[in-house]
């Protein structure tokens, strides 16, 4: 038997005490254990041989994985494999998506088709509901609501159609029909859940038996009155939702998800269930989640009396409003009638729109007419309610023509302008250039046909006119048959001289030359020729007396009127006395109307 315990075999264990000292013992050991030792060596070789080890693992791997799986839901293996599987899948897709796409195709087709068909089912359902509600009283109410809230009608209809409330959720064990967990919405009176769950399980069997359905088929839904029970059957557990009202189809998906998650989390416990339901207490969170997130408050219609009261209030308000509008219409109508009479207004239209508070007044208005806002305020009407559509025009009313002229000509203070049948009369005192301006512009003003400036004076003219009046009133008296200035008339002479000096001065200011005639008068006694001569004497003597008083020469010219222009009758001596006199008359300037 060859001794393999040589130094050239490194794998051979060396025992110096045995090897060196007692070769007999080594020999003995070889004899006794040589078979086991060879086996040991072979085993060691197998363990250290990478290829062999891989081969061994490959042999047992499928069985090992299967065993691990049979032990129940074991997340360790899944967790260990997940990163590798995910990475592999990712890399594969990155490298060539076609391979994964082809592999998934058979599974994806049906799921996509199913998703699309579910979608269309839900769409048709909502469309049906919308159509159903479009032509009912409720539909009209919803339309109003849609208008009021600015939402689309379908949105509002959907909101009302899908009002539902999940009141209870049962989770029961499929095999035994025993209740595992139940969640009840607040304020819901619940019956005995255990018995209900049992009966639901029995009904499942009953339905399946009665219709000879396949074992995987299940009673998915049943309805009693306003309650709907939706059943989602998993392989090990069944979820039942008791719903008041109509839940959307999407909620079915939610139930399915919850069922799947229950199976994923509690799969092993469902398998091993032997009556202890408390192990499913943690499932409550899952059930609550499904149920709370899908809950909607049940919308209750308003109680009828309130609706009636509201309607009555609305009708009363409407009637009151209409009455108020009627009164307002009357007031505004009166105002518009008044406006038609107002100078500078031509009203062509007046109306108020349906359900509107605003009054539209159309027509034309002269810019010089009274401001319509102030007219409205004077009548106690709210100017903000007036929609005035007034074009502009020039009215030919005298009042407005006068206003227009005043606006354009800006007369200085002291000048008064009036218009009568298109004739602009100007009175008062004004500077010469304003008067020139007036003469050139006045007839261009709309409505002015002619200008009458006879009442117009230059500055100083009024003083002149006054002095001229005073002069006209002055009179020097003479004795019968005499042309001598009487002693008692000296003061009168001085007075006339002063007036003439003033007039001379004013005439020079006006750029004119004063010219006055002194007219000698006589009584009617005696021959005319003598009286004519006497009158001239009297006038001449007066002129001389005035010139002696300091008056410039050649201003006053003597003239005789004889007895032909008597100032009084000749019936008495006192009347004849009046006629023996000299009077004065301004010949130039002619400014101002002669009084």
């Amino acid at each position, binding site marked *: 038997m060859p001794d393999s315990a040589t130094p050239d075999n490194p794998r051979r264990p060396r025992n110096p005490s045995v090897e060196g000292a007692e070769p007999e013992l080594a020999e003995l050991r070889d004899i006794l254990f040589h078979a086991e030792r060879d086996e040991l060596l072979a085993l060691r070789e197998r363990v250290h041989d990478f290829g062999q080890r891989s081969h061994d693992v490959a042999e047992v791997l499928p069985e090992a994985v299967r065993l691990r799986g049979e032990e129940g839901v074991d997340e360790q293996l899944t967790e260990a494999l997940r990163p590798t599987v995910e990475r592999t899948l990712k890399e594969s897709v990155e490298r060539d998506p076609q391979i994964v796409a082809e592999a998934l195709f058979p599974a994806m087709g049906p799921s996509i088709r199913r998703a699309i068909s579910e979608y269309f089912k839900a769409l048709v359902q909502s469309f049906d509901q919308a159509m159903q509600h479009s032509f009912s009283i409720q539909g009209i109410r919803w339309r109003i609501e849609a208008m009021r809230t600015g939402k689309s009608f379908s949105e509002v209809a959907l909101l009302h159609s899908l009002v539902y409330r999940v009141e209870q959720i049962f989770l029961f064990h499929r095999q035994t029909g025993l209740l595992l967990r139940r969640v009840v919405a607040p304020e819901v009176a619940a019956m005995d859940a255990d018995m209900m769950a049992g009966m639901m399980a029995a009904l499942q*069997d009953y339905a399946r038996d009665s219709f000879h359905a396949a074992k995987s088929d299940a009673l998915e839904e049943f309805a009693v009155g306003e309650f709907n029970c939706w059943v989602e059957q998993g392989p090990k557990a069944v979820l039942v939702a008791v719903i008041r009202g109509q839940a959307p189809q999407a909620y079915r998906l939610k139930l399915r998800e919850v069922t799947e998650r229950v199976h994923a989390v509690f799969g092993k416990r469902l398998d091993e269930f032997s009556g202890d339901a408390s192990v499913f207490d943690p499932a409550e969170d899952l059930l609550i989640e499904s149920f709370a997130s899908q809950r909607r408050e049940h919308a209750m219609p308003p109680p009828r009396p309130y609706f009636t009261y509201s309607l009555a209030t609305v009708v009363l308000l409407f009637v009151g409003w209409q009455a108020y509008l009627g009164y307002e219409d009357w007031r505004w109508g009166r105002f518009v009638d008044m406006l038609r009479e107002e100078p500078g207004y031509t009203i062509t239209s007046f109306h108020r729109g349906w359900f509107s508070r605003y009054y539209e007044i159309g027509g034309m208005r002269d810019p010089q007419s009274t401001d319509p806002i102030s007219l409205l305020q004077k009548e106690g009407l709210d100017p903000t309610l007036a929609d005035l559509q007034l074009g502009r025009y020039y009215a030919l009313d005298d009042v407005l023509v006068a206003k227009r002229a005043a606006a354009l000509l800006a007369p200085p203070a002291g000048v008064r302008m009036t218009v009568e049948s298109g004739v602009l009369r100007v009175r008062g005192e004004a500077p010469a250039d304003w008067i020139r301006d007036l003469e050139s512009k006045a007839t261009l003003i709309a409505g002015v046909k002619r200008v009458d400036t006879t009442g117009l004076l230059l500055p100083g003219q009024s003083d002149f006119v006054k002095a001229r009046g005073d002069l006209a009133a002055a009179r020097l008296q003479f004795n019968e048959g005499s042309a001598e200035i009487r002693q008692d008339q000296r003061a009168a002479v001085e007075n006339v001289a002063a007036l003439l000096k003033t007039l001379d001065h004013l005439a020079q200011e006006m750029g004119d030359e004063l010219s006055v005639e002194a007219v000698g008068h006589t009584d009617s006694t005696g021959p005319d020729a003598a009286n004519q001569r006497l009158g001239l004497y009297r006038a001449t003597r007066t002129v001389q007396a005035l010139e002696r008083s300091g008056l410039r020469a050649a201003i006053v010219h003597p003239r005789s009127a004889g007895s032909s222009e008597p100032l009084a009758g000749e019936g008495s001596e006192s009347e004849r006395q009046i006629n023996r006199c000299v009077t004065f008359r301004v010949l130039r300037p002619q400014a101002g109307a002669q009084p």
Partner: protein
Amino acid sequence: MEYKKKICMLGSFSVGKTSLVRRYVQSIFEEKYLTTVGVKIDKKTVRVDGDDVLIMLWDIYGEDDFQKLRMNFLRGASGYLLVADGTRRATLDKALELNERVQAGPDAAPVVLVVNKVDLAPDWEVTGELLDELRTKGWQPLKSSAKTGESVEDAFLALARMTLGKKP
């Protein structure tokens, strides 16, 4: 600790199953369920060594010539209450036959045999010898009465213990 267990009550038509338990269980469903759906579910809580056992009792419509037992209703049962009518021998045979069928199936489970109508003992067709014979085969039949309530609680207790793997 509370356990929930499904127990099925089996027996021929009119052996008095429903009346037997009526006074001992909580019930919310009407008896017409039995004839319409074929099953009525009641509830009973039994206390076993400090644990509560909530028995969901599936009262299954009695098998007769016209109606076969719906085996689906037995699925997941943890025990059976087998009921026979002492005054009719045939019902005992039927009960034993049903038991054989059940125990051969996937829902085999402990069983308690109750022979009902002990208040009518003189008219019994099920003789003492017959019961003894059953005892030799391992049965522990209970004589019960819907009228007196005799043995009803015992039957439930025995079943509850058995479902927990304890001796009756």
